């Protein structure tokens, strides 16, 4: 059975925002760990905090783009409800799920970055 390329794309986009969140967490954690273990002078978290701020800005921008894509997909078929088993309904549902996951991921990215905002020391 040949699947619709559009549907396949939709499923990938569904995990895009949580993937960005997990990458943000991984990069932030590894950066802080390596910084404190190898590079920090006087146990200051300085450089790692800047890096985490940059990762966060990039992650929020990317998640924003995913959310925009989800919103557009959800709204483009306004005539069709998304609770019936049709192709249009599925597209709208997936768009809405992408949007909600993007919102959750954005909050998670902020929470992951908050320690770097409040804590200045490797201690």
């Amino acid at each position, binding site marked *: 059975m040949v699947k619709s390329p559009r549907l396949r794309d939709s499923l990938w986009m569904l995990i895009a925002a949580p993937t960005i969140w997990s990458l943000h967490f991984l990069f932030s954690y590894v950066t802080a760990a390596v910084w404190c273990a190898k590079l920090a002078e006087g*146990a200051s978290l300085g450089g790692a905090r800047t890096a985490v701020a940059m990762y966060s800005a990039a992650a929020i921008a990317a998640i924003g783009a995913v959310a925009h894509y989800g919103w557009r997909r959800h709204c483009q078929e306004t005539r069709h409800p998304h609770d019936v088993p049709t192709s249009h309904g599925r597209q709208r549902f997936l768009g809405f799920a992408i949007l909600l996951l993007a*919102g959750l991921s954005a*909050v998670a990215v*902020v*929470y992951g970055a*908050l*320690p770097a*905002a*409040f*804590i*200045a*020391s490797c*201690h």
Partner: protein
Amino acid sequence: MALRIASPTGAVLVVLVAACDGPQSALDVAGDGATRIADLFWGMAAGAAVIWIGVVGLAVYATRVRPGEHSGRTAKLLLIGGGVVFPTIVLTGLLSYGLLLIPELREPSDGRLIVSVTGEQWWWRVRYETADGRTVELANELRLPVGEAVEVRLESRDVIHAFWVPSLAGKIDMVPGRVTRLSLKPTRTGEFRGACAEYCGESHALMAFPVAVMEPAAFAAWLEDQHALAAPPSTPETERGARLFMAMGCGSCHAVRGTAAAGTIGPDLTHIGGRASLGAGILVNDVDAFARWIAETDHVKPGVRMPAFGMLAESDLRALGQYLESLQ
């Protein structure tokens, strides 16, 4: 004493309130860190109660007061506002407040007293370092001066342990290869209890320690005493105990400063007779407990590295106990 409890509610209250005080209660605070944590707890408990009343109130409203259909707009507002926006704001506030507390609770020392505590299966190696650079190694007990911030540096020699004196501050992990820090500032004198708060093996539950918060002058005198060498045995029985201690090889693992015993594998015993407990907070400190610990070590604390000396005669065990008890 016979207790009569008037109602099931009374019984529940007794159980709940019984957990609020005692030497190991995070709600019976005696330190700056614990005060912050207790404030946070009570604030969260009050907030949770308000939210619970609100949710139950809405449920009653929707099912009893106005069971009919509600407008889609109101339902949407309630779902998005109460289910998404409100929890996000509350959790962000709580996370930010918790993170704000961390730097203060881990403030490094500025020339004050430093206490290094190393977790080992299943006891605590404690080293005091004063501002004048002198150090002394003790074990299984913590004494602190009231009103002074003390930096506690935490390490582990084997597995992950966690250091927790609920009445004084929050808990923090002791990770092999890393030094973690905690600032303890007791606010009142008293006897408290600390414990390992991270499962660390079969005798994890037997890894505790007494904590005494003292007036600064009494603390300074106590610390000065701890620097002193061990008192030589003064009675025939304690002399026999001291000879047995060396003959049985105890000095290979334990140090008694001022004698030939200089082992570093087990706890320093120079002033063990003056400690509040034996075996890391699990036995009272008396001759009988020493004899039991030495003869049945593996029963008292399963898995411990110290071998049991059950082959010793009762009189030898008591002589050893009296010698160790005399090390005040």
